[in-house]
């Protein structure tokens, strides 16, 4: 039996579980907010075209609009200035096999609950590797914070105060370590942004964007259900829309894992 045939067999038999790591796209879901004088990404909006009525008697459909970086979304290297000149750096030119990779789930939920500004460090990652093994090359490294559980409360999810947003993320050295010494495929978080809420004060500002995209790696944000994944062993599928020269896109992120 071929690998794919046995895969389908296991999937049909329920031995492979599919976990949806995607937040529902809705107008209420909070969107990224920049200082008001800057350009802004559109939030997700949806309006009916017709609903079995005089506008279209037998069909229901909607128009929707949003920015590339809305809801659960993918960041391509071209998103950041450091990745602007790399080959295959946009949503349409990334080789499709790079949308699939092993998932390593770093459970920082306890730390994030204690400190909204928690920064993931190299020391923390090495501690994780002692328990779960070395992060393999071309892995999706997913930072579990359980932040997605706040998403029903947009205020708590965004977590703004007068100094800006307070959400967890990686520190500069952790990003450099994952890129330089672990050759990851991309980095994923549960909050808005792969960087921490206060990452404009790190050096360089927004290090995860800067180094990850500068090295041709990807980002995933606004993920959910990471608490259902094992630390290792899941396969993550994250294929963005094929937008020409796109800097990112909302997408459906799936994790495949073997049922116990």
């Amino acid at each position, binding site marked *: 039996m071929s690998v794919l045939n046995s895969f389908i067999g296991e999937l049909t038999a329920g031995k492979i579980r599919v976990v949806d790591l995607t937040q529902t796209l809705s107008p209420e879901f909070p969107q990224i907010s920049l200082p008001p004088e800057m350009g802004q990404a559109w*939030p997700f*909006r*949806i309006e009916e075209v017709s609903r079995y009525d005089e506008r279209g008697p037998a069909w229901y459909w909607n128009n929707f609009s949003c920015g590339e970086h809305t809801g659960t979304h993918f960041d391509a290297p071209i998103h950041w200035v450091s990745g602007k000149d790399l080959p295959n750096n946009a949503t349409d030119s990334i080789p499709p096999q790079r949308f699939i990779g092993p998932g390593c789930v770093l459970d920082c939920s306890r730390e994030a609950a204690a400190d909204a500004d928690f920064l993931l460090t190299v020391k923390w990652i090495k501690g994780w590797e002692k328990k779960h093994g070395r992060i393999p090359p071309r892995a999706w490294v997913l930072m579990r914070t359980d932040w997605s559980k706040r998403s029903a409360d947009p205020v708590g999810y*965004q977590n703004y105060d007068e100094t800006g947003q307070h959400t967890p993320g990686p520190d500069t050295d952790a990003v450099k370590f994952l890129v330089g010494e672990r050759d990851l495929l991309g980095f994923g978080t549960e909050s808005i942004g792969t960087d921490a809420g206060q990452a404009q004060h790190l050096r360089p500002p927004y290090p995860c964007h800067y180094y990850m995209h500068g090295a041709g790696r990807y980002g995933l944000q606004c993920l959910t259900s990471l608490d259902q994944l094992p630390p290792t062993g899941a396969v993550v599928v994250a294929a963005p829309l094929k937008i020409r020269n796109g800097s990112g896109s909302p997408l459906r992120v799936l994790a495949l894992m073997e049922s116990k």
Partner: protein
Amino acid sequence: MTMPARLPPPKRKNPLARTRLPASPGQGRSRVAQGLTLAAAHGRFMLQRCEDCGTVQYPPREACATCLSPRLPWRSLDGAGELIARTTIRYGQEIYFRERPPFPVGLVRLDCGPSLVVALHGDCGAAPARVRVGLALDKAGQGLVIALPEKDTPNMADDPLIRETTSDPKFRKVLVTDAKTAVGRTAVEAFLAAGADHVWAGFAEPWKPSAHLAHLQTQDKATLVPLDVTDEGSVRELAGRIGGKVDILVNTAEFHRVSTIARQGTETARAEMEVNYFGLLRLAQAFGPALKARAADGEASATAWVNLLSVYAFANLPAQGTFCASKAAALSLAQALRAELQPSGIRVVNVFPGPIDDEWNQLLPPPKVAAAGLANAIVDALRDGVEDVYPGDVAQEWLARWRDNPKALERELSL
């Protein structure tokens, strides 16, 4: 003199009785008679005065009643006069009047000349008496000549004639669509101070902290309600919740940036249109039908719709070019909304301030319109029963310039 008792709070509605539909008092007027409407819409008393012989005309006409001159410009006049006779109309052919209690009318001789039949305020007293004649908009949106007592009387705004020709917030329920701004917050406060029964204070993007909203949370008769006018679902959901209760809708939702044609792309311009134009359209679609249906629903019926526009809706200020364009679009839509709501008697009040004292007008020199002043102007407009208001010195001056020579204003604004 009859001294009307202070209007008691309206009784609760009988839910088994059919809601009375709005009837219209009006019939068409001649074009020249719409001069009364124009004056009433701006809260002025104007009649035609002959350029040749000086005779003040009433009713409005094409040629002078004294010398047949066609030169009859409209002039602001003093409405002082003498009530020389009065009566009470108890029966009428029009459904509108049959439904209403006896209606006092009088014959007034104005000091400036003509005699007019007027609708009488209840405090005018027996003839002869000195009165103040003015113009009001009736439920058909047409100019109506009314007489008020010579001096203000207690509770005079509670008189049926005044309640019917204005949109006094007293006892009414008000929705302020965006209370996160200084203008929105002070509007909520001004309506509460004016005796509104309840004010719903809308807010979008709950994750962006707002001192104004936090302040309103402490007000007893105000309720914060989520409302994002860029989101059709949000607008419909709120209309479903409270649309059948709103008597006055005040659309303060405004997206204001300093954006010119030179700014690259259309993102900011679209955001302005999304709030300032499409926001109004979404609100009109969701809240308009219930307002119309409740336009004669008792003493505190649905009565008015207020739009926060800008004096730059008339003439574009290029330094804020795309913002002004969105306000011009909103003005045009507001005219359509006025036509749509007119048959029911719901009044659309357009507010055209000059530059508001907000962070986007930071570098504009004073005078700028303060939020509280603007909020009071909105409440005053509803109490005075006018349709168009131009709060602030800048708005007044630019309006005068626009009327005088719109081309000159266009050139001046481009400097």
